[in-house]
């Protein structure tokens, strides 16, 4: 067919979005933060503090107490005391009301939390504002309602609280992970000692202030800050009945080993290397959104990130082209700008790790594509990156990078892609994109992963159980299934 369309000269138009910074003038941040023990802020027994750094500017934003064994001892004692004397004997419906109250307070202070989350962790304000903080509030609200209904969740079982839970959380979703841990633990009648990640302590400490404001009995929630050594003190502490950990698989194994000789209960939510699988009959443009959201959401600092893209060979070229075009439109930079899609890498350490993988990919001779965006001069930033032609045996396809780096492989048949997707020690999540219902169910039932997103990706909800198969950990967080981690049964 002869297409004689009228040729039109196109004008050379350039339209850039002006900076749209979120104001941080309304937030209240202290210069120095102490541990939160027994309802009060307490100076660290070591007298030492470490710096909370804004990864987008490399500037210090506050000092945070460095924990030690003595601090953990105090916190555990407070938690035990609160458990015995108040929390475990309080009517469950009253426990519920405290949790509802906390949920409401988070909603009221959502903007302040969002700003601090982005300042401290580097994630785009759009994400902390629209995802992290609302979900954290929703989590408290959801589990609040469970507190006095536990008997209905486990028929014939007489669920009972466990005691003191030691909770160690990562730096990728600081407040949200605190909510994931604290809300079900408290709903089930336990008290907690929580340690936030050392690079992202601030929103947990703001949560401590909020908990004080809520009037929650002293000692029910204790928060001790510090690095992995403090975490190890929690794991090894005799007064703790239950460990809940979210973080790397290596540390998860170490915890498992440490507590083998004890009767401590444990739930682990660890790493992942999720396959995101696109078939030729998929809704392609939405699949591209899902791939982008799957790997560049929160700079790829997501345990369930869709870091392995499997694209059916018949659509590979067009798919990669469109994916690249989409990546070009991502706005990378100042986390505080409302238009930023990809923010700062959480820490210098993590920046170096990710950079190491990128260099490895280049050295392996893989095809690399990076967004042509320019990066801010200071701060830890990495351009959204895609490696194509990656072999199943390459480190880039095997190891969790925890950054904005996508490894692309192609496949021909359904059986082949299922086998490749399952060919990993991890099993946290997976994605499937196809328009055909029976194919979706074939894949969703055969993929060995705890969360499977079909024609969507990286969706979270308090009612939806989350957690992994195999080396991605055990136990579930969220939903009815998330309760059993904090209960014991006759």
């Amino acid at each position, binding site marked *: *067919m*002869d*297409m*004689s*369309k*009228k*040729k*039109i*000269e*196109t*004008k050379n*138009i*350039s*339209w*850039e*979005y*002006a*900076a*749209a910074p979120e104001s941080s003038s309304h937030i209240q941040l202290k210069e120095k933060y102490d541990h939160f023990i027994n309802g009060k802020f307490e100076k660290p027994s070591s007298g030492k503090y470490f710096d909370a750094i804004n990864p987008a500017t490399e500037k210090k934003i506050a000092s945070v107490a460095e924990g030690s064994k003595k601090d953990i001892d105090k916190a555990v004692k407070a938690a035990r005391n609160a458990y015995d004397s108040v929390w475990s004997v309080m009517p469950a419906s009253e426990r519920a009301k405290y949790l509802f109250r906390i949920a409401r307070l988070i909603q009221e202070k959502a903007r302040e939390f969002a700003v601090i989350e982005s300042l401290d962790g580097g994630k785009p304000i*759009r994400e902390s504002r*629209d995802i992290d903080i609302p979900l954290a509030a929703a989590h408290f609200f959801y589990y609040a309602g469970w507190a006095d209904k536990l008997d209905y969740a486990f028929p014939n079982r007489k669920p009972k609280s466990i005691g003191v839970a030691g909770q160690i959380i990562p730096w990728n979703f600081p407040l949200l992970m605190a909510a994931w841990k604290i809300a079900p633990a408290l709903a089930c009648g336990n008290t907690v000692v929580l340690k936030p990640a050392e690079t992202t302590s601030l929103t947990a400490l703001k949560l401590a202030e909020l908990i004080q404001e809520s009037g929650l009995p002293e000692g029910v929630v204790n928060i001790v800050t510090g690095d992995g050594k403090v975490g190890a003190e929690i794991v090894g502490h005799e007064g703790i009945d239950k460990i809940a950990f979210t973080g790397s698989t290596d540390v998860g194994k170490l915890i498992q080993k440490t507590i083998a000789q004890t009767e401590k209960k444990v739930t682990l939510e660890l790493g992942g290397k999720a396959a995101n699988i696109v078939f030729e*009959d*998929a*809704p*392609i*443009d*939405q699949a591209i*959104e*899902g791939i982008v959201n799957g790997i560049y959401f929160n700079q790829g600092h997501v345990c369930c990130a869709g870091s392995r893209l499997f694209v059916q060979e018949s659509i590979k070229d*067009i798919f990669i*082209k*469109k994916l690249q075009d989409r990546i070009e*439109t991502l706005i990378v930079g100042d986390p505080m700008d*409302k*238009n930023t899609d990809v923010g700062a890498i959480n820490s210098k350490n993590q920046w170096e790790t990710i950079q190491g993988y990128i260099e490895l990919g280049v050295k392996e001779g893989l095809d690399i594509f990076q967004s042509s965006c320019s990066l801010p001069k200071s701060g830890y930033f990495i351009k959204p990156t895609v490696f194509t032609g990656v072999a199943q045996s390459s480190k880039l396809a095997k190891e969790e990078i925890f950054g904005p780096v996508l490894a692309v492989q192609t496949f021909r048949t359904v059986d082949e892609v299922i086998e490749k997707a399952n060919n990993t020690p991890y099993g946290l999540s997976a994605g499937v994109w196809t*328009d055909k219902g029976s194919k979706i169910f074939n894949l969703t039932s055969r993929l060995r992963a705890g969360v499977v997103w079909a*024609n*969507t990706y990286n969706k979270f909800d308090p009612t939806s159980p989350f957690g992994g198969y195999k080396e991605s950990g055990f136990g579930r967080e969220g939903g009815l299934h998330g309760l059993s981690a904090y209960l014991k049964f006759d």
Partner: protein
Amino acid sequence: MNLKKTITIPDFTKSPSVDQVGIIERSSRFQTRSIKNESKIQALKMVLNMIDLTTLEGKDTVGKVNQMCYKALHLHDDYPGLPTVAAVCVYPSMVAIAKEAVKGSGVKVASVSTAFPSGQAPFSTKIDDTKYALDQGADEIDMVISRGKYHQGEYNFVFDEIAKIKELCGAQARLKVILETGEIGTLDDVRRASDIAIYAGADFIKTSTGKIGSAASIPVTLTMLYAIKDYFIKTGIMVGMKPAGGISTSKLAIHYLVMVKEILGEAWLSNEWFRFGASSLANDVLLQLEKQRTGVYQSKDYISID
């Protein structure tokens, strides 16, 4: 760009599928973009320059059309340096009037045709309708597709009608093809109808007639932009986009621009490739521009209606 290259017509029954929830999620992302300061002023001026100022009523008169055309050229003379709108859009019977009224201004005259808005007329009538508008001097033809035939699965019929009208337009007029998405159904159908129109030779694809309840929306427009993008990737040929109806605020219009920029790129950000079919949008944009200029919130009393 080789315009003479042969293009294979795809099987329209196999148009790409669209996931509506995914489209809505993407749509909401455009709407969280925060456009401030100089970007906003630039955008508002772009919006004005992309408007097809429209009157399509049974009661249209020479007087009404003349008034609208004057407004098209003098949006708000109190604000120096404002652009004109892109075009005025009228029924075929008013083309000559409009043509005279905007003479020499660069503003185009668009005429609806092919038994607008229902398209329920014999094909010969549609041809006569279009020929008349062209004879009267129309620079652009806004045709409607046969939705009835589309729903009967007669995609070839729909295609052939568009191709024939395109042939009539020749070098004189650019062809906008109205899908009337509110009658077309799901986003899968919007995509298929877009593909049919594009491959049949549309210079623009347009959402709506403005004559039924359901008009342009961001999700529908996004679906159509993806069709344009795919065609461009395949052929290197640009096709324009015109959402029409329901876009009456500056904020929403700016979000359309964000969407066009992020899906198709800045090359589409001119009235050669993007139009708003709207009657009340212009005045809201003017209110916003005055607010930006003066720093004071404005009243409609200070902006002329026509």
